[in-house]
């Protein structure tokens, strides 16, 4: 399973765009990149998943360069309610051992 590295914490202000970058230098051909969001006292929530280039949904965008050794989660115009821990995970979509290994995540603090 590819190891991921992401910043421990980030601060932002309401209305700003937030970009959280994750490094995964040993990503394998069959690996997908998935991001989860976790609020206090809740289980993580799936945000977005991608393999290459760009993926966008109603919550966020995910940018993956051609070498796939990193990815960037982009949250447009954050609000106070976006304060949470964000996890970057890499997993093999073709394998039956589908467990995802969570790291420490990035704690995003959005300030007024």
């Amino acid at each position, binding site marked *: 399973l590819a190891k991921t590295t992401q910043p421990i914490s980030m601060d932002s202000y309401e209305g700003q765009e937030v970009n959280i970058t994750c490094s995964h230098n040993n990503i394998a051909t069959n690996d997908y990149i998935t991001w989860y969001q976790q609020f206090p006292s*809740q*289980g993580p929530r*799936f945000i977005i998943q991608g393999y290459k280039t760009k993926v966008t949904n109603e919550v966020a965008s995910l940018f993956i360069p051609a070498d796939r050794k990193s990815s960037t989660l982009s949250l447009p115009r954050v609000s106070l309610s976006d304060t949470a821990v964000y*996890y970057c995970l890499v997993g093999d*979509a073709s394998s*039956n051992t*589908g*467990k995802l*290994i*969570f790291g420490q995540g990035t704690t995003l603090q959005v300030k007024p």
Partner: protein
Amino acid sequence: GAGVSQSPSNKVTEKGKDVELRCDPISGHTALYWYRQSLGQGLEFLIYFQGNSAPDKSGLPSDRFSAERTGGSVSTLTIQRTQQEDSAVYLCASSRDTFYGYTFGSGTRLTIV
């Protein structure tokens, strides 16, 4: 149901007692996972069930921990002879298969006194 349901939501038990935690996955989800999260920490993988295959127990921290999944649906995580270091939030998740995003329950907060 609409989401992953876990019970109880909170459990306080004396050291040395056994506890059972229950997880009701989303109907039709073949994969089920248990994780543990200690205060201020990330998620620690415990065990994974996929269909009728043998479970992946590689994350269970000791032989005091065991889990079952009956009929491919409900799962029970059992901790025998609980210790104070077992105090944590135990999270269950399910997914349609290994590729799609997981849906987590709200967890069971276990406190050993």
